[in-house]
């Protein structure tokens, strides 16, 4: 169970919104429930991330710019390493840092492995066979229609590398986003010479995702309240989805007009300005240096083991 500073009753799943069907009769969620679940899940994850970022952990104490730069270096290193042992060590390192940052090992493992690395594992499973990756067969699977089938060592090691690499890359990104508050991340992006206009658009987009999300939630909750029976009329359902997406666009456009007027009233002339000046501290240098050293050791180890 995820723990947050949000009141417990807000996080209690309702009968209709329970994803696993543990309350009441289990049934397949329809499109209304699923969209509501997605909207709720999005809010929950965001609230949790903001909560986690304010804890007193190792990475929370580091500056956003240093984490961004260090994370990028480590992501690149993980992409360049080809030995599964080195990747496993890198993954375990991220796990250790997650624990030191008070994210909880169990939660962190669940958050990372569900669902992309698991999905990747299933997808690359056929690639272990000699049909797709030819090589030395280590696990023969018999003869099928006159063709010798088996798991090759090349295929198995390739599959292992890709799964662990995907997990390590996701761990690095999750570490960054769970330990950094959104406002700090924006400052970090600005300090790393990302164009100011992009940062402004990005920050506004992120903020208005939640404003529009409330509209979506209202529309779908109203729809759910009006539906007495779960009729599963897919054609009407699709019409409703299209109409709600269309209505949402109308509202979004009206909102952008209002926001524009509000910005003009506050003196906006089409250029982004910021008052904060980014300064580099000794701590930031240490964080980046640690990331660079770990990357060099990983790449060196990869070369030695290869």
């Amino acid at each position, binding site marked *: 169970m995820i723990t947050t500073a949000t009141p417990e009753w807000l996080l209690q799943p309702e009968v209709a919104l329970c994803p696993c069907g543990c309350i009441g009769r289990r049934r397949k969620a329809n499109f209304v429930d*699923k969209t509501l679940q997605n909207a709720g899940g999005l809010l929950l994850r965001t609230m949790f991330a903001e909560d986690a970022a304010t804890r007193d952990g190792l990475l929370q104490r580091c500056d956003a710019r240093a984490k961004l730069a260090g994370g990028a270096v480590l992501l690149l290193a993980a992409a360049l390493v080809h030995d599964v042992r080195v990747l496993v060590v890198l993954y375990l390192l991220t796990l250790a840092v997650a624990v030191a940052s008070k994210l909880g090992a169990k939660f962190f493992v669940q958050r990372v492995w569900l669902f992309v690395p698991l999905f990747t594992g299933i997808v690359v499973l056929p690639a272990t066979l000699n049909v*797709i990756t030819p090589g030395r067969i280590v696990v023969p699977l018999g003869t099928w229609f006159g063709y010798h089938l088996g798991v090759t060592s090349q295929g198995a090691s390739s599959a292992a590398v*890709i799964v662990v690499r995907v997990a390590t890359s996701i761990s690095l990104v999750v570490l960054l986003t769970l330990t950094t508050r959104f406002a700090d991340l924006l400052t970090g992006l600005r300090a790393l010479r990302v164009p100011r206009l992009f940062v402004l658009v990005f920050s506004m987009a992120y903020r208005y995702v939640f404003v529009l999300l409330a509209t979506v939630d209202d529309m779908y909750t109203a729809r759910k309240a009006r539906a007495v029976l779960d009729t599963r009329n897919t054609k009407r359902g699709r019409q409703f989805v299209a109409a709600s997406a269309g209505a949402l666009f109308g509202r979004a456009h009206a909102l952008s007009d209002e926001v524009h007027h509000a910005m003009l009233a506050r003196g906006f002339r089409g250029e982004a300005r910021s008052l904060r000046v980014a300064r580099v501290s000794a701590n930031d240098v240490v964080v980046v240096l640690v990331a660079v050293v770990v990357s060099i050791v990983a790449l060196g180890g990869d070369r030695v083991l290869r």
Partner: protein
Amino acid sequence: MHIPDGYLSPATCATFGGAMVPVWATAGRKVKRVVRSRYVPLVAIGAAYSFLVMMFNVPIPDGTTAHAVGAVLIACLLGPWAAVVAVSVALFIQALFFGDGGVLAYGANAFNMAFVMPFVGYGVYRLASRRLSLTSPRRALAAGMGAYVGLNAAALCAAIEFGVQPDLFRSANGTPLYAPFHLSQTVPTMLFAHLTVAGAVEAVLTFGVIAYLQRANVPILRINHRGVAETDAELTRAPLGWRWALIGIATMVVLTPLGLLAPGRAFGEDRARDLNAGKYGLRVVPAGLARYNGFWEHTVLRSYGFGAGSHPAVAYLLSAVVGIVAVSALVLGVYGLSRTLSRRNARELA
């Protein structure tokens, strides 16, 4: 279709990231020039909308649901350049905050879904909606068609990006270092999924939204359709131009020398003995083929060549010219004859 980190080599990621830089720069400049200081709120809220469209669950007949990307929808509503920026920002939020799509692979994801998809889809939409009024039902169909083609183009790009990995990046003993499947496996798999379910969902949502806005909020459609007549009655029909037909034919004429590069021969085209029947498990040449092959020998440029077989390239091109002239003369003759006959009919009726 969101590619996570680890599937593509850093070189591939860098290539696509580099390819997207001029696209983003151009998109930023173009959109800013059109909407000026409205740029920031319009694009930002467009991006937020794009992010949420990817969250809408569309019901499909088997009782499950699927979600759309919506890039072509945004291209139809705000124009393709605005779609590039909006979808790119939405993908960035997804990659950074929700782990959907990689950070290193961001350039490749943006290339597929924020560049190829809106441009291909919007191109199809524009072609299919020429000479249609703003509220014409066929315009909504054109948008659906564009969405279908755009999504499949993006899926094809993603499949190619995956598929080249094992050939380009493998270790000395043949271990693939990144995505392990070859082009021959990735392209059919990705296209099967997208040509059937995902493409249909994308088309249905895009069609549905445009059809809804045609009924409920036409001014919104005006944002990207200035000067388009609102109803069929207001439409001024220009005569169908010959230009496009001529451009198509001219392209084919320019491409004729490609035939010189084509290896081999068509299946038993010239002589029955060219037909390697044994290859197909046949013992004899079919009787009809043997009898009627070579039935007419009195040709000028036999097999698109001179009788002696000299100067094959010149003979091939000469054959092309003769063919084009002959076909054009025939078409013009039939056209002239039909014009004359219809004029005579009109006179007689008068």
